């Protein structure tokens, strides 16, 4: 390639292993100054590990990182920043209580070794950075009061202040509306004009094409392809990411004459939910989708009693039930597989057995709360077998399992309590492709057996694959309802982001 400028950074044969599992195997590619590269791959493909290596948070086991011709075997966080690499994480890593100006100028003041807070200088730096991005945001607003898109702009501005030459954006569009995505793409073009390279990390497909020159696809820790963006279309990219041709079969329609199992009406919680109502039938899978912050998780938390509703009614099997706590929800027959498996779902360092049996402790406790240990152990073993959880034994800490197996442990916990209604929030986040289709099959099987399921996800293909009916949420309200199979992937994605 004769006309390509000297690359800014070259990754060569990077290898990283965690506890015997290869997260990255022989990954290498290069990024030129001002080039926009997309790193695509499913959850668990090694994208995050690669970001961490570039950010200097983790050292590769083998391989080299060459920046401007200098070869490094590892980068520390400071070396990465000094080389001009800035990472914008999904949560933006901002200080919510500090102002826009403080957030943008903070790291430079720190780097300059300045001992004093110089507000005037901070405001100058911040204003200059925002001007470079081409936006205006009030410098004195605390960051926590900003909308998500503005927070992202603050994070980008902060990266520029530190003389960024490569900005890595991790899933930058997951909380943005379509209009905001357009604005972001315009900004990326601007940065490119300034000679700043961007590595765009995403597992979503549509937004990738517009802005990238080159696409690198990772699968199971290996680079499967690196080619100009023009050579891909959505189908080939999906194939490279998953290694499979997908013909998602729409689920068999649920019988609409089944009795309603959950009737929610006028659910309202200040600032989070606004007059939400829907009905869930026995044997039905109801898909709920929406952007981050649309109220999809708030709805689940309200139904499960974690953040109870201010007003509205919840009827389960025809009876009004006040759900003020998770225990009340569980007593009413509701189970909840939470969004963040690692912090909300699991007791990571505890055994698989305890993680499964936590909902069944009382059922196995006899006189004075003493456990019937044989019955307890037998039930755990049965669940390991029924959900085909691959584990050496039930005493192994659950943190040693893969994402897919961990999610099955959470599922087993709830299935053991024999719920009437199971709410799954992001059921396949961080789960490998094989486990993903297994989990979808489990969902379909539970519905066929008469359970009512609510699947919440921003993964449009997933929602389409499992749902009999689909609700779209926006700003705490349900704005659309579709019958499963009545809408295609592109249409639903557009409704979501519009």
């Amino acid at each position: 390639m004769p006309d390509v400028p000297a690359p800014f950074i070259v990754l060569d044969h990077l290898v990283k292993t965690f506890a015997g599992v290869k997260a990255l195997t022989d990954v290498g590619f290069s990024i030129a100054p001002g080039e926009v590269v997309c790193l695509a791959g499913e959850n668990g493909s090694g994208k995050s590990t690669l970001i961490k290596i570039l950010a200097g948070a983790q050292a590769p086991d083998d391989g080299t990182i060459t920046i401007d011709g200098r070869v490094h075997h590892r980068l520390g966080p400071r070396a990465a920043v000094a080389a001009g690499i800035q990472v914008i994480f999904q949560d933006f890593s901002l200080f919510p209580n500090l102002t826009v100006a403080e957030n943008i100028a903070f790291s430079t003041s720190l780097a300059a070794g300045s001992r004093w807070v110089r507000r005037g200088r901070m405001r100058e730096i911040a204003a200059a950075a925002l001007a470079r991005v081409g936006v205006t945001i009030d410098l004195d607003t605390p960051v926590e009061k900003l909308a998500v898109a503005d927070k992202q702009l603050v994070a980008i501005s902060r990266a520029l202040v530190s003389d960024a030459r490569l900005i890595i954006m991790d899933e930058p569009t997951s909380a943005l509306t379509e209009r905001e995505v357009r604005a972001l793409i315009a900004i990326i073009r601007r940065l490119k004009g300034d000679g700043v390279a961007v590595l765009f990390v995403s597992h979503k497909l549509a937004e990738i094409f517009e802005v990238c020159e080159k696409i690198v696809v990772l699968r199971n820790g290996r680079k499967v392809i690196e080619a100009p963006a023009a050579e891909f279309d959505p189908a080939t990219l999906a194939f490279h990411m998953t290694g499979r041709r997908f013909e998602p079969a729409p689920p068999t329609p649920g019988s609409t004459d089944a009795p309603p199992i959950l009737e929610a009406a006028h659910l309202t919680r200040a600032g989070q939910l606004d007059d939400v109502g829907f009905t869930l039938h026995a044997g039905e899978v109801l898909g709920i989708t929406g952007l981050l912050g649309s109220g999809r998780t708030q709805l689940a938390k309200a139904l499960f009693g974690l953040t109870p509703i201010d007003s509205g009614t919840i009827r389960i099997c025809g009876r009004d039930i006040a759900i003020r706590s998770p225990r009340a929800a569980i007593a009413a027959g509701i189970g909840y597989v939470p969004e963040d498996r690692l912090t909300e779902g699991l007791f990571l360092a505890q055994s698989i057995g305890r993680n499964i049996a936590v909902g069944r402790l009382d059922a196995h406790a006899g006189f004075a709360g003493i456990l019937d240990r044989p019955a307890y152990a037998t039930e755990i073993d049965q669940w390991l077998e029924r959900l085909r959880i691959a584990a050496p034994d039930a005493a192994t800490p659950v943190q040693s399992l893969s994402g897919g197996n961990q999610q099955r442990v959470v599922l087993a916990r709830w299935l053991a309590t024999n719920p009437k209604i199971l709410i799954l929030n992001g059921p396949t986040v961080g789960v490998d492709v094989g486990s993903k289709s297994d989990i979808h099959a489990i969902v379909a099987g539970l519905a066929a057996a008469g359970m009512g399921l609510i699947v919440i996800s921003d993964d449009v293909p997933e929602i389409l694959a499992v749902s009999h009916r689909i609700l779209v949420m926006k700003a705490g309200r349900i704005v659309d309802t579709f019958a499963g199979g009545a809408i295609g992937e592109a249409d639903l994605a557009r409704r979501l982001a519009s």
Partner: protein
Amino acid sequence: MNEPLDGAGPTPDATLRRTASPTFRLLASPIGRLAVITVLIFVALALLAPSRFVSVGNLTSMAFQFPEFALLSLAMMLAMLTGGIDLSVVGIANLSAILAGLALHAAGPEASAGTATLAIGAAIVVSLAVGAVCGVINGLTIGRFALPPILATLGSGLIYTGLGVAITGGSAVLGFPAAFAIIGNGSLGIVPVPLILFAVAAVGVAFLLGRTAYGIRIELLGTNPLASRFAGIDDFMVTVKTYVLSGMLAALAGLVVMSRANSAKADYGSSYMLLSILICVLGGINPNGGFGKVSGLVLAVLSLQFLSSGLNMLQVSNFAREFIWGGLLLIVMVVNTFELVRHRR
């Protein structure tokens, strides 16, 4: 992408455990290492002071000395398992002992056998009840008002100690029926009564943690309070119950101290608070909550008692003793942390 996020748990490498030699296996677990250390300390002191350290007199004397702070350590352990800490254990022990002591004092040293029995019974009931009430207060401030346990119990501990001073005017409560000395100084055969009390409490706590639904809930809550909420564990009740139990164990320790000293006072055992934390951490109770075994705690108690008595015999000054305790604590924690880090890689 699912590398373990937090290696707080005892996750000895399972394959290593199965394949390695017995010695290696012993050293691979924190409790195994502590057992080896305890034996080494015993042997070293036995060699340094052969006639005195391994004498019936010394062994008996040690068996009378450690149960009081061992009981306080058990109380501390329960709070630590929930991810908390109970800095009020010594305050509870003294306040409950003072109130119980007033009942004993009312009977007086010359009480008849019947009155003395009644007074001792009343004293035990009063003491445990006071311990329970103090525990409820701790549990409410932590479980309902969500104060950090370290601050909640620091404050409540000061209140309990202050109440003790206010009730006694700062002086000791004296004049108990002679029979009360059995609790701290009596023996059943050759076994000291306080040792029996501790053994019963330790076995009870071990059973509670290993065999009951409540015990498993304590450890789950201590591992991840957020996940406990999502799993429907009644974290408030678990917290309150645990601090009540902790308070009652502290009160039991208070009874033993009072019986051994034949008096109760608001400032007895003030060094025991830090000592009980030291024992818990040395014994492998995870200060972040969720993990810990009574067997580890017992080994830590024994090793510290051996050191304490042995160094006393070798006429090492008290300052050097504290120096050695602190050193032991840091070394064990560093070794355990190294192991966790190694597993995480």
